[in-house]
């Protein structure tokens, strides 16, 4: 099997400005944050981002990387609304396709199945078609003649996902509560990149969890990145939960330009190792503050 191991920066070097990039996970859960941080360090811009959004979307918006956003929501879960997303929407800094959550799945599934659209009832009667004039209806060719929303395929240039384990060939495994839509993001993409907590020999995958936990197939994957704590500060259960203290710090900083500049200087001005070191120092400080 081909060894597909890469670094975050090598993944980002394969991406181009203007690309459509799908990001796996859900809200502030199991997001490929080390890959997102690598994009922040790059000169990529004008991206179209497709996501069940969380801080991945927030950070990319704050760094001015996003031209267009396709989403069902952008949330930090324990904080209902992503602050950078709110700011970007209220300042008109980004154009959006706000879809029903289920439409996003259907668009990814259509792309992964090489269909141009899939019919869906969800969205009909709401203002989703009104604010997304590119959406069209389709009539059943059968006797019922029912009209559906024709959810267009979300064809991605690249997908970024973070799972718990993977082998060097790109077989990837989730060990937490939900696989989310990571396999569909990979299937919908021209090139999919998997980051994971730990790269293990193939033989260890089924020792760690049931065969059903092998969510992503290597035939869908172009690169594998070992990224311990790579989903920080989102959840990556059972390896770790969400860093709520850090997320609060992030959200507070995001509300104020000066605080955000300080946050960026402290956490996002260096490479991934510098980020992880700054996070470790933040955790130590928080502990001391509690004492």
């Amino acid at each position, binding site marked *: 099997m081909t060894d597909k191991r890469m670094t975050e920066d090598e993944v980002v070097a394969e991406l181009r400005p203007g690309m459509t990039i799908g990001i796996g996970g859900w809200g502030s859960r199991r997001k490929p944050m080390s890959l997102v941080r690598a994009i922040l360090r790059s000169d990529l811009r004008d991206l179209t981002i497709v996501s069940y959004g969380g801080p991945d979307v927030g950070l990319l918006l704050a760094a001015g990387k996003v031209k267009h956003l396709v989403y*069902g929501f952008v949330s930090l879960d324990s904080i209902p609304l992503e602050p950078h997303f709110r700011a970007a929407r*209220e300042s008109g800094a980004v154009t959006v396709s*706000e879809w*029903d959550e289920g439409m996003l799945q259907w668009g990814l599934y259509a792309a992964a199945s090489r269909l141009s659209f899939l019919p869906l009832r969800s969205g*009909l*009667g709401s203002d*989703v078609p009104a604010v997304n004039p590119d959406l069209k209806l389709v009539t059943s060719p059968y006797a019922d003649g029912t009209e559906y929303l024709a959810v267009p395929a979300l064809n991605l240039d690249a997908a970024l996902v973070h799972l718990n384990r993977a082998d060097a060939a790109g077989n990837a495994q989730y060990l937490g*509560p939900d696989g*989310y839509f990571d396999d569909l993001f990979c299937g919908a993409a021209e090139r999919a990149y998997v980051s994971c907590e730990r790269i293990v020999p193939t033989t260890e995958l089924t020792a760690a969890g049931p065969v059903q936990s092998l969510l992503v197939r290597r035939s869908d994957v172009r690169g594998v990145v070992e990224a311990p704590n790579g989903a920080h500060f989102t959840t990556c259960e059972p390896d770790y939960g969400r860093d709520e203290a850090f997320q609060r710090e992030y959200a507070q900083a995001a509300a104020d330009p000066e605080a955000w500049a300080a946050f960026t200087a402290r956490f996002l001005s260096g490479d991934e190792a510098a980020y992880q070191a700054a996070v470790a120092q933040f955790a130590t400080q928080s502990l001391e503050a509690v004492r």
Partner: protein
Amino acid sequence: MSVQEDVRPEVDAATVTRAEVCIAACADAWRGDGEILASPMLTVPTIAARTARATFEPDLLLSDGESKLIAGTWAIGETPPADAVEGYVPFRRIFDLLWSGKRHVMMSPSQIDRFGNANISALGDFARPTRQLLGVRGAPGNTVNHPTSYWVPRHSTRVFVERVDMVAGVGYDRARAVGGDVERDLDIRRVVTNLAVLDFGGPDHCARLVSVHPGVTVDEVVATTGFALDIPVEVPVSRLPTGEELRVIREVVDPRGLREKEVRA
């Protein structure tokens, strides 16, 4: 045949709080639903769904809000016992389930109009909102696929408006315009607020006042509603929780009293 003695504890009306009345009214939304997934958001509906299952609607399915279906009754804010797991519902299967129609959600709108169109997405012009809210999330799909109810913790003219800025949850006039499956399946059961219970049983499915909570006047509801409500000649008072419901609410589901933080009478 012997006459069974009613062993339910008696209710001392003076001790029942507004939040507890709201919980009973929310619980009634799921009455008769049988074996479907009850999906509450916020605190009061969550307490209500668990109370409904623990008392009069035992076949409801309830999730932990993450990916598991949970049997039995557990306290709000607590992790359910590991041996109570009865099913697996990751988000993808929630979509399958909601598209199948076997679900009844209770959402909280930022705006809702007289035909039940609900906004959780954004305020102002959608292209550049004055205030971005949650986004449409699952509301468009929920409303046209399965029963929907709403919980409004603070009844006001800001929430009950003539026209919502963005239709996320579909109302009856919109559903009629679409026709077909959407019109047939749209089923907005009730809107429970801190003051009253509404449904859409007025002319052309417009909003109707069903009951006012104890201590609330019809005039108060009218003054805090930004559109014309259909008001019957006689407006009943919302029911009190039964003794058994109160016991479940106070001792089992919400011993810490989180309900009182969400509802100000």
